[in-house]
């Protein structure tokens, strides 16, 4: 009843050809398991949420077609800055050179 080994090998060969597998009767380590692995990169890179459309984008598209928009928060912010400047509490001037920043520190 037992089939000869060569016959079984032939069978395995045909099987591998049909199902497009690697025929490897000596069980050599051919590194095929690495080819079978899926790439994990896309899943890992999708962890953090990406930028989506913002209110500013909407404003831009609106202004391009000649429509005016109103951003209450932005207006409030600009008004607060104006008030702070009038009170002398505005942002200090940017120091462009190293000498300027040093003299500003010394004055203290």
């Amino acid at each position: 009843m037992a089939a000869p080994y060569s016959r079984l090998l032939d069978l395995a060969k045909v099987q591998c050809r049909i199902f497009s597998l690697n025929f490897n009767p000596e069980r050599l380590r051919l590194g095929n398991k690495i080819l079978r692995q899926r790439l994990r990169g896309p899943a890992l890179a999708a962890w953090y949420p990406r930028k989506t459309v913002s209110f500013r984008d909407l404003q831009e598209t609106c202004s391009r077609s000649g429509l005016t928009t109103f951003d209450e928060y932005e207006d409030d912010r600009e008004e607060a800055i104006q008030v702070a400047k009038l009170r002398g509490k505005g942002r200090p001037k940017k120091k462009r050179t190293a000498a300027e920043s040093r003299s500003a520190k010394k004055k203290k």
Partner: protein
Amino acid sequence: MSHFRAKIQDLGGFINPRVVRDHTKRKVFAQFEPDRQALRYVIHNTSLPQRVRAQAQLQLASMHAYTRSTQVKNRCVAGGVPRSVIRAFRLGRFQFRMQALAGELPGVRKASW
């Protein structure tokens, strides 16, 4: 490393330098993963000449650290916290608790049994 970092960030949620760094590592890993897998295949394939396999080993070891998946750390999406991050929600424990109590996580509620 700074040469990998994108000039314009595409992150949408909470951002701090550590989140930017981790995001950069993730993208670099995704970009170089095929190369790494190719080298790993060469290393694992015993039918190739030993010299080629050793060469591949050296090259894999000399690749930049950012191309390694072990550099990636799961951080809280809402607060950037690296510890005790729940994978299902990508949130740190305190952010998870706040959002769950606010009812922002579907199906999550206080349990008592």
